[in-house]
């Protein structure tokens, strides 16, 4: 599930550079998360970033402007989950700095991530978004995702 949303904002942005995620992006990602959610959670992002680097250091992508992280998209190719045997590019987390909304950062991150998924042999990308996250849903649809013939179910415990 895409768990970090883009938030409102605006402003002039420097040239954006997209590059694979590294350990030096942890603080920048933590900063974006903090701006969006109001929570400072470095340990959470340390674990997540290390996981994605370990799994495939070239898959997850970061957007940088003037040396600062302004967006990130974390994902990987997995297969065999939920009975879906085909290699699937999973978009798990994304975030765009509030100040860079509407500048195409998310689209460029997605372009790089999806290109990597293709190079790994994936013919489909999947993600999950909560229904109330309308902004994220709108964004994910804008980059070509459509409702899948799969039901997402849950049971409260």
């Amino acid at each position, binding site marked *: 599930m895409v768990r970090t949303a883009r938030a409102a904002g605006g402003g002039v942005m420097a040239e954006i550079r997209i590059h694979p995620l590294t350990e030096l992006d942890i603080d920048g990602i933590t900063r974006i998360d903090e701006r969006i959610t109001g929570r400072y959670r*470095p340990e959470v992002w340390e674990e997540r970033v290390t996981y994605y*680097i370990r799994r495939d250091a070239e898959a997850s992508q970061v957007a940088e402007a003037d040396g600062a992280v302004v967006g990130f998209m974390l994902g990987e190719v*997995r297969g065999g989950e939920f009975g879906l045997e085909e290699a699937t590019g999973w978009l798990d987390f994304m975030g765009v700095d509030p100040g860079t909304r509407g500048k195409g950062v998310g689209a460029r991150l997605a372009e790089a991530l999806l290109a990597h998924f293709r190079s790994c042999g994936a013919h489909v990308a999947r993600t999950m978004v909560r229904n109330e996250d309308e902004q994220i849903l709108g964004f994910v649809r804008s980059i070509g995702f459509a409702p899948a013939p799969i039901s997402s179910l849950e049971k409260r415990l």
Partner: protein
Amino acid sequence: MAEIKRDMPREYHEAVVHWQKHNFPDYPKLVQLWDRYFPRDEPFCLCAKLADDVDPEIQLGDRKGQPKALSPKELPQDAAHLLLGQIRAQASTEFGSIQQHEGTLARAADPQDQAWVLRVMAEELRHGYQMVHLLTSQDWSSVTEQKPADMVEEILNMNTGSHVLAAFNLEFDSFTDNVVFAALIDRVGKYQLSMQKVSAYEPYAASMPPMLKEEAFHLAAGVVPLRRWVERAAKGDALVTMEVIQKSVVKWFVRGLEMFGDDRPGGHGGDDAVRMGLKDMNNRQAQDSYIAEVQKVLDDLNERYVRAKRPDLSRDEADALYAKLKREKGSADGIAYEDLLRLPDRRFFRRRGEGAFQMYGFDGQTFDDPEKCIADVAAHLPEAYRASVDVRHWSNMLRKVHAGEVSLKDAIKSMPRLARVGGSCPCARSVRWVMDVDGGGASGEGARLHP
């Protein structure tokens, strides 16, 4: 990127496995810990991995646009010779770092930190295997009379103290070194691998992408524990201090700089390799980028420290405080500049290249008296390392150079040198690491290497 996996002929595969038994006895623990710390990851493979999508044409230098060499004899003689040196040095670093890590691996206070370093070591073993594969899968007779088995023997016989580069001849003093080494020395490795991705020798270029993917985790295995340690230090944990981390940073950063080779400003270190299409940056360019990146690591750690020390400040206020401390080098809001992690001047405590055996202090200040310079160096090094033969050797050479008793050239040469003799496996003096194995060919179980 697709990867092709290759095993070596059995005698070489088994030689590496046997080396592991002597030099990396903790390796079997990785299998036990794998599912706990690396769930869902593909099991570790001791094999060579080659990218199958490297550019078939030489990307830079005098022969740009020509097809990359598929064997050493297709390279000009000077390029093949330089390449062989690159591969041997790379192999030495891979096996050497395992020997260093092993000494203090058990001292890790956190099981996850230890498991991460264990995986780093295993992947360094794979990288060493990769280099041995390069040396044994092609005919190098156009540039060396040494047989492949003897080249492998030479590499597997190196120990801490006899490796090609000084950074791999220093003992680790504590688990702090394991982590700082991963953050700083593996970062030099990342630069070398990145530069060599363009290599005019196709098998070498194809070896780099899989190694780089693994190296990315090694850097995280260094930086992430450090991020947590600086937070603990900020919160007053007596067992983790900024001073201990700072001194380890100095120890490794200085030797890391020398891994780039001759870095004198205005010099031509590495230019030949660029001209030959073997890498895409000269030594100084790569080192400049490295210094900037290490400064970024320290900024990251310092910002985490400031944030933990002053949780009452907002993100922007904490950023402003760090910027002020860095700019004014003073104290503010209960934090002193000296509490933070800092890089020494690039000429500080050098054995080679710019500043070698010259009297530069931590901040780039100069001294007239060798004893004052030595005192400044000693004050910035870890206590255990300060007492080592390595530091004593540097101090003695500095004194002799400035007393006119030893030339600078001889001082630089006086580094520990590789003992280039065929050796033996330590479990049987008459037995070599590489043994002829009946049936040769594929690697696998069942080879009897030792009586």
